[in-house]
């Protein structure tokens, strides 16, 4: 009973932290974008205000929508993005659902919020939302390839170094790929890091990969028919998902903690690692989301597919080759 209670408690705390960090991240994002565009930009708390407002507003269900599905999907999106967090270790804190999850599970859980968005878009019955949903689906296909490559090859490299259970986050917390890789491997991992930087905006549907929501083309695309509370829930889900994705990238590719540097242990180490972890998340979010979306124009959906499959797919294959060679040279396999 106690376990269940503490799991529920942990989930709630995690949800709150996830939402808070997510909204804070998008606040920072909007602020920095504004500065880069020579503007002042909104206050940091603007995303909080926006969500608060949305939650109090009327939620209109369009005439052609399937109401229950239409209303359910925002909740599904939020719930599933929170679920992602439960499997992730933050700093040196083990995940709430510790052993149960691993990288691939998280990878698939990350699909669920997008899927909820797609189904919600379909359920709203509007042509724009439908085109948006269709594009979201296509871009999911697009970034899945480099994403799968990154995750699988990292696990493979770990396995080649005789690390047991290479998909598990617990393993990742203990062993960093960077430690097992030789020089060639490091180059491969750097490629993967680069890859991840470009996958993140795709997963979050940000410019240049924002064609599902393309305002100038589709009037908000998938979300065109959503309003009020439902829209608010979607933005919460988006915020949490942002934390989830970036945290995922940080965990697998930037796994270092501060506490060993200071030789700390115990609660203090957990706190400092947690802070350091979120600092990493913020930095990654700025580099891979904020800067990218500010410096580029939107790609067409066909170009999105091409870029992810051929350019980033190619880079991924290069990384695979490098890491496999590396494993050979290091004598793992």
């Amino acid at each position, binding site marked *: 009973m106690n376990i269940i209670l503490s799991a529920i408690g942990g989930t709630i705390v995690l949800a709150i932290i996830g939402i808070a960090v997510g909204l804070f991240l998008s606040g920072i994002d909007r602020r920095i974008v504004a500065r880069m565009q020579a503007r002042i930009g909104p206050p940091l708390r603007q995303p909080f205000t926006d969500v608060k407002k949305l939650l109090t507003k009327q939620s209109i269900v369009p*005439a*052609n929508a*399937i109401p*229950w*599905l239409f209303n359910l999907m925002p909740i599904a999106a939020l719930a599933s993005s929170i679920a992602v967090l439960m499997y992730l270790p933050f700093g040196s804190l083990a995940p709430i659902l510790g052993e149960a999850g*691993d990288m*691939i*599970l998280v*990878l*698939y*859980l990350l*699909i*669920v919020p997008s*899927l909820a968005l*797609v*189904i919600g878009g*379909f*359920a709203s*019955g509007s042509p724009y939302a*439908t085109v948006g*949903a*269709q594009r979201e*689906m*296509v871009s*999911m*296909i697009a970034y*899945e*390839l480099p994403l*799968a*490559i990154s995750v*699988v*090859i990292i*696990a*493979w490299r770990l*396995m080649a170094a005789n690390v047991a259970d290479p*998909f598990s986050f617990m393993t990742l917390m203990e062993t960093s790929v960077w430690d097992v890789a030789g020089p060639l491997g490091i180059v491969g991992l750097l490629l993967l890091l680069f890859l991840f930087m470009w996958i993140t905006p795709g997963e979050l549907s940000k410019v240049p990969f924002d064609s599902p929501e393309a305002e100038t083309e589709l009037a908000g695309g998938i979300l065109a028919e959503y309003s009020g509370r439902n829209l608010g829930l979607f933005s919460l889900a988006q915020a949490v998902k942002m934390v989830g994705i970036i945290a995922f990238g940080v965990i697998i590719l930037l796994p270092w903690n501060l506490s060993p540097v200071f030789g700390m242990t115990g609660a203090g180490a957990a706190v400092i690692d947690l802070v350091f972890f979120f600092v990493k998340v913020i930095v990654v979010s700025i580099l891979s989301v904020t800067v990218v979306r500010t410096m580029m124009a939107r790609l067409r959906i066909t170009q999105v597919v091409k870029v992810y499959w051929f350019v980033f797919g190619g880079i991924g294959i290069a990384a*695979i080759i490098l890491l*496999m060679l590396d494993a050979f040279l290091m004598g793992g396999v």
Partner: protein
Amino acid sequence: MNLLLDNLPALLIAVPLLGAFLVPVIGRFLPKIRDAWIILVSFLASLAAVITAAAVFLKGTLVYVFGAAAVSSAADSGGIPFRIIFTIDGFGAFMLLSAAIVSFAVVLYLVASQKERSGKSEFYALYLLLTAGIFGMVSTGDLFNFFVFLEINTLAGAALVSYHRKGGIAVEGAIKYLIVNTVGGLMVLFSIGLLYAQYNSLNMAFLASQMTWTTLNIVALVLFITALGMKAGAVPFHFATPDAYSVAPSGITAVMVVASQAGLYGLFRVLFTLYGGSINTVTIGWVIIILGILSMVIGVTMALPQKDIKRLLAYHAVSQTGYMLLGVGVAFAVLGDPAATAAFGQTAMEGGLFHIINHALYKGLLFLAVGAVIYRTGVWSLNKLGGLGHNMKWTMVFFLIGALAIAGIPPFNGFASKLMIYESVFAFNPALSIIAMVVSILTLASFMKVFHSVFMGPRLPEYENVKEVPKLMIAGMIILTIFVIGFGLVPDLVVDSIVSPAAAALLNQGSYITAVLGGGL
């Protein structure tokens, strides 16, 4: 009671056969209770299968000789081919379970969906025959009997495919199915002949114990792989599957999935049990893996542009079969390397096998849901459907669950087995996992497209008055849904209790032989 329990394997075949025989009689004289009779027979058959399976899982491989008092009498003459011998090990039991669940759920569905049709007696008789064929295929320990059940399976299946449909397509689909499977059957028969000529026996355990790597045996193996691959509908032998599936009544298609998996059963049985210890597993393993990858990729790419909703599902069946071949193929490739088998081979095997039952469940569910749509609208074409979500809420939910399951989205069962596959085959070769993951997302895309074009959008005037399907059909779908979700939520439990034994049974060729032939060899 004990008598019943002792003769469980016989009941597996006897109940459906007897039931099938009685259907026309009852249909003639007591038409009112015919539907109830069908359900009862099917229930009993499934019950028998479940109990059999349970017995196997609890007590180990079951060897049953028809007409013989004790097991040993089957083995003593080594080469005596004339007795019917059933050898149900973990793998067989596993297949029985899968067939039992689906066939019972489908019966509920069929009884409601076929209500307005004529010629039902024969239809149900055939259906029960098909069930018997499947049960038989996965239970028999004798190659010739395997062939016989395979033929029953094929003929009943082909008859059911063309049932209730007049005109070109149905018949054409059935004929194509029949021809392909008959050719397959003949190949099986020929291989059996080759083996029999050499070893003078049809008993699998006995053959396995004698098997050597000779040219003749290689020819037999190639024929086996080809023929059973045809039955299973894997690339490059997949051409008949979509044609047959797209024309068969939807409930039937759901069972046909199981029927074709019996082919897969045969394939794995031949590979592991018959040839297991004696051949170069790496080469053959790669062949299987490549067939798997091709099935996955070609199946899904063929599915994407399909307009006929059932054809589309059929191509996905091809694609999903690929996953099973992939998992099992990897396990086969490392069969000779105990370390690798322990590290990932066994998991790959379990993943592949787990996917068999999962596929039977969610694909069955999908066929039933699609069947429900067709039942109400009479329309197959995605271009003409739309907006049904407003009226067919339950069907939509079932379809969505099936779709998410087949696409491998957590927490449904498809994900559980695919996860096992991803996380094991990568160790053999990382590209395999990556391809498998990408195929999954393509599957998802394809199903989202179907979901959208069938259920989403505004109500269409032509479907204004469409209602939800009858309760019994929903019941059939609910049964499958429960398993789809349940298997997804507690995959470990399922793997431990039914999948692992199945995998172990396949991996451990010796125990099969021992169970049949005794420790003497």
